[in-house]
C-alpha cells in the first residue's frame, strides 16, 4: 500500500488556500501522528476549514467543529482531502 499520494494525484490539505473548506478523505500518516490527528478530530469524512498559515507560511491552522488545530505542512501533505463547496 503506498503511503504517499500518487504523482499528480489527489489533493492534500497542503494545497488548500486559507478560507478553503474540505472534507478529509484519508490519512497517509502512520502510528503516533495518525493517532494524534484522529484524536484531534481529523477523521475521514470530517469537514475542516483552513483558516490561515503562520507568518512564515508554516504551520497552518485548521478549524473543526469546536476547535482550532495547528499542524505543519509536513503533516498536512499526508492528509488527502476533497474540496467541499463552501455553503452559506
Amino acid at each position, binding site marked *: 500500500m503506498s503511503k504517499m499520494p500518487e*504523482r499528480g494525484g489527489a489533493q492534500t490539505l497542503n494545497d488548500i488556500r486559507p478560507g478553503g473548506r474540505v472534507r478529509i478523505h484519508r490519512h497517509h500518516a502512520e502510528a503516533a501522528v495518525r493517532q494524534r490527528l484522529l*484524536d484531534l478530530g481529523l477523521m475521514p469524512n470530517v469537514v475542516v476549514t483552513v483558516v490561515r498559515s*503562520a507568518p512564515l507560511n508554516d504551520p497552518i491552522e485548521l478549524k473543526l467543529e469546536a476547535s482550532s488545530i495547528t*499542524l505543519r505542512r*509536513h*503533516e498536512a501533505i499526508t492528509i488527502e482531502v476533497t474540496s467541499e463547496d463552501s455553503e452559506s
Partner: protein
Amino acid sequence: MSKRDGVLVALAGQQNAGKSTLFNVLTGARQHVANYPGVTVDKKYGQYRDAVGSVYTVDLPGTYSLTSFSLEERVAREFLLGDRPDVTVNVVDASNLRRSLHLTLQILEMELPSVLALNMMDVAEGRGLQIDQSLLSERLQLPVVATVGRKGQGREALREAVRAEASRQVETPTPPPVLVDYGPLEPIIAQVQQRLARFKAIADLPQRWLALELLEGDSQAVSILVERLGEAAARPLREAIGSLIAEFEQQQDMEISDYVVGCRDRAVERLLDGVLSGGEQGRKTLTERVDRVVLNRWLAPGFLLLTVFAIYQVSIVWGYELTNVTWPYLAKGRELIAGLLPSAHFLVDPYVRSLGLWLVDSANTLLNYVPIFIILFACIAIVEDSGYMARIAFILDKVLHRFGLHGQSTLPLILGGVFAGGCAVPGVMATKGIPDNRARMATIFTVPFMNCLAKVPLYTLLLGIFFVEHKSLMMFYISTMTIVFALLVAKLLTKTVLSGQETSPFVMELPHYHLPTFNGVARRAIERTWQYIKKVGTVVLAVAVVVFVLLHLPGLPEARKAHFQQEAEAAIERFEQALAGNPYREIATGANLVPLINYYSDYKRAKLNATGAEASQRVTERFQARNADFYPLVIRGGDRDAKQASRALRTLARERQKLRLQMREERITHSILGTIGRGMEPITQFAGFDWKINVALLASFAARESSVATLGVLFQQGDDENQTLEERMGQETREGGATALLAVSMILFFALYPPCLATTMMVKVQTGSYKWMAFSIIFPTILGLAVSSAVYSIGMAVGATGIEAMSAVYWSAFVLLLIVGLFSDRQASRLLRQRFSEG
C-alpha cells in the same frame, strides 16, 4: 492491590480540559494551571476530606486518547490500569463534547468506575450550547456533574458524586455498559476475548479493552501480554491475533485503528443526538475574531515583539526600579543580624560572625531580585493563561523547527529567560510537554543558555564597570545573543549527538482565549517565586558555606599571623600615645578600645545608610542612647580634646582596615579555593581569567547566583566602607589591569557556561540519564572556554576594545545563524518537493 483507607480518585481528561483547575478546586492545592495544552506532564497527588473520610486525588496529564504513543498517554494509562483508582473523574470540555467523549468511551472500556465532570460550562453557555445532562447521564450510565473550574463552581456536587460512586462500587458493583458497537469487528473481539480468558495471569485486566488494544496493535498491550504470559505462551496468541487483524483489514480495506475510531465517532454521534443543541454555527467566536488580528500574517510578528517588549519593560526595567525601594530593607535586615552576632575583634573576627555575615550577604544579593521575579512570573502567567502562549508557538514553530527545536520549545525558553531573566530549572522542567523527543533534548540543552536571572546580576555588574557609555547596546547584545547562540547550538546538537533521537510532528490545539484571573496569576507568580527562594535558601546557602570553608582553610601561617598581630599592637600603641594627657583616654583605651572602634564603624555605616535629615537624626539619637560616653568621640564636632581623640580614632580605624584587607588577601590566596583557582590559570589565561574570577566561576557552578555573591566577597568591602560592588570591583580590577575585553570574555563564558547544579539535576530527571547530565556540564564548559579564549586572545592580538569585540562576536554569530537558517530551509523544501513527486 493493597488495602487503602480512603478513596483513590484520578482526574483524567483531554488536554486543557481543566483537570488541574478542578484538582486545585477539590484539594485546595496549587497545581500549575495554564491555558496551554500539555501543561501537566506528570501525575500530581493531593488530598481532601469529605463528610465520610479522606479522598486521595491524582491529577493526570491530559490525553486525547489512551493509546500508548506519547509519554503523557502512557503515564495516564499506566496509572489507570495499574493503580485502578476507585473513581475516575473524567473531566470533559463541555464546549467540545464531541471530541471529549471519545476519551470517555475509552475510559469506560477500561472498566473504570467514573464520574463525568462537564467542565467549562460557562464557555459552553457563552456559545449558546445546551446540554441535556440527565439524558447524557442516562445514556452513558454515569453520574454527570456540571462544573466551572475557574470559578470553583460545582465543587460540592462533584465531591458528593465521587463519594456516592465510590460507595456504590462497594455495595452494588455493576459491569460497565457497552456503549460502542464495533459491527463486523465484534465477533473478532469476542474470539480474542475467549482466547484471553484462558490465562489467569491477565484476568485482572479489562478483557474487552485488552482484546481491542491487541487488535489495534497497541505496542504496550502486546508487551503486557509478553510480560505476563512469557514469550512462549504469548507467541501463538500474537500470531493468531495477527492473522485476524490481517483478515479483517483486507476485508474492510482499512486499518483497524481507523475503523475503531470511526465506530467510536458514530457512537458519540448517537450519544449526543438530542443531548446537545443550540450553538450558532455562522457567528464567529471571540477567539476567532481576536485571532484574525493577532495572528494576521503581517501583524503577528509585531504583536509578538510588542508582547516580549512589554514583558521586558514591565518586569526587568520596572522591576529593577522596584529593587531600589526594597534594597534598604534587606540592608536593614543585615544590620539587625550583624547586631545579634558576636561583635568584631580588632583583627580577626569570630567565625560565627564572619560566616553569619557571609550567609546574609549571599542571601541578600539574591533576595534583591525577588521583585523582578514576581513581576516576570506574573507576566508569563498572563501570557500562558490567556492562551497567547500557544499562539507564540504557532508563530515561531517554523523558525524554531529550522534549528531543530519545536514550537513548544517556546515556553521552556521563555521560562529560562529569553529576554533577560528567568530560571533554567522550571525551563528544563517545562520541556516535558514537547512531543518531539529530539527537539525536547535539544531544548533541554539550550535552555541553560538563556539569561537566567542569576546571570543578570553579573552582566549588570560588568556593564556598570566597563561599559558605562555602551550600556544599552551591550544590553541589547546580551539579551538577544542568548537566543542566537541557543539556536546555533540546537542545530549543532541536532545534527550531531542528537541525530539518532526520535522526532514527531507539531500537531497542537490552539486553546480559546481566556481572561486570566487575578487569583490564578498572582498564585502562580508567588508560587514560582517561592520555588526560587527555596532554591536560594537551600542550594545557595549550602554552597555559600562550602565556599566559605574553602576560602578560609587552611588559614594564615603562624608567622604571618604573628606579624599582623605585631602591626596591630603597634597601631594601638600609637593611638594610646596620641591620647596621652587627653581626658578621654580612660574611655577610649584598654578594654574599651575594641567596643569603641566597632561602635565607630557601626555609627559611620548607619549614617551612610540613613537617607534624609530625619533618619540621620534618629541615628544620632540611637547611638547617643547606645553609649553616651563614646558618642563625643565619633562625631566631628565637640570640644578640643574630643576632636583630637576622634582624629586619632579615625587614624586607628583606617590602619585596622588596611591590616584586615591585607590579611584577607593573603588568606584567600593561600586558601584551598584560591589554590584551585590559581591551578586553573594556565588554561583560563587565554580567556583572560585570573584566579579570583576562576574562584567565582567555580562557585557559580553550584548555583549561578553565587557568582556575584562570591565576587562581592572577593572584592570585599571593609566594614565601614559603603561602596557598591561596581565601584569596588572596578577599582580593584582596573588596578589589576582588567579591561573591557576581559569583561566581554567573562560575559561570553557566562552566557555559555554550564547550568548550575540545580539545573543539571533537572536535566538528569528529564533525560533520565547521567550520561546526558554529564554532557550538559562538559559540552558548555568546553564551548564557553573555547569562545572566550578565542575572543580574548584574538582581541588582545588585534587590540580590539570591549565593545568592538562584542560587536564582532555578535554579528558573526548572527550571520552564521542566517546562513544555517536559510540553508536548512532550502534543504527542507527540497525534501518536501521530493516526497511530493516521488509518490
